[in-house]
């Protein structure tokens, strides 16, 4: 079974802090993704990566950056956290081509 592990289930940070969300997958998948999920807005893609050190902007990249130094690990960085970044963050991974994405259980991030 594919396992996508997000480092924290719940996280509380303060406005202006730099926040790191970590994601690790164990299936040697090429693609990794970060989404945020908000009530009524579904899943919105923040960034994705199709290879080590490669990244592409998704639909809502503003205020975020990412890092993929190793194939199995994909980090989401909030450069200067703001209250409107309070959300559920989901990481996913997949193989190339017509392949499903496999999700972690999410990190619920609160910015105070």
């Amino acid at each position: 079974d594919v396992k996508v592990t997000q480092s924290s289930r719940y996280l509380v940070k303060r406005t202006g802090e730099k926040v790191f969300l970590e994601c690790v997958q164990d299936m040697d998948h090429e693609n990794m993704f970060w989404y945020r999920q908000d009530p009524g807005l579904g899943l919105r893609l923040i960034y994705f990566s199709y290879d080590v050190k490669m990244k592409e902007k998704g639909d809502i990249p503003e205020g975020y950056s990412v890092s993929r130094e190793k194939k199995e690990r994909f980090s989401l960085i909030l450069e200067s956290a703001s209250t409107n970044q309070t959300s559920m963050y989901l990481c996913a991974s997949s193989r190339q081509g017509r392949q499903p994405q496999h999700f972690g259980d999410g990190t619920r991030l609160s910015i105070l």
Partner: protein
Amino acid sequence: QQQVKQSPQSLIVQKGGISIINCAYENTAFDYFPWYQQFPGKGPALLIAIRPDVSEKKEGRFTISFNKSAKQFSLHIMDSQPGDSATYFCAALYSSASKIIFGSGTRLSIRP
């Protein structure tokens, strides 16, 4: 062109009834259509998927119907059970791209 429109936003069905969720797309380049099921506190999990050369796919009580000419596809849950209560997302992707386009989600509640 990149959107996947999903309806209804929420659905209440009696136990034993049929739950139907509909999705529509515009981009004819999409060639893979997965459905995801998400329980509270968990990430979305792949439920069932279909390719456009097939009009129907059934797995247990779950069936995807696909109408290529109308650019619509739907999920039918037969004999709906309280354990099916979850949020369901339809999605679409094309194999030359890495990212999936998600619908906005349907919150399904099965009344005992």
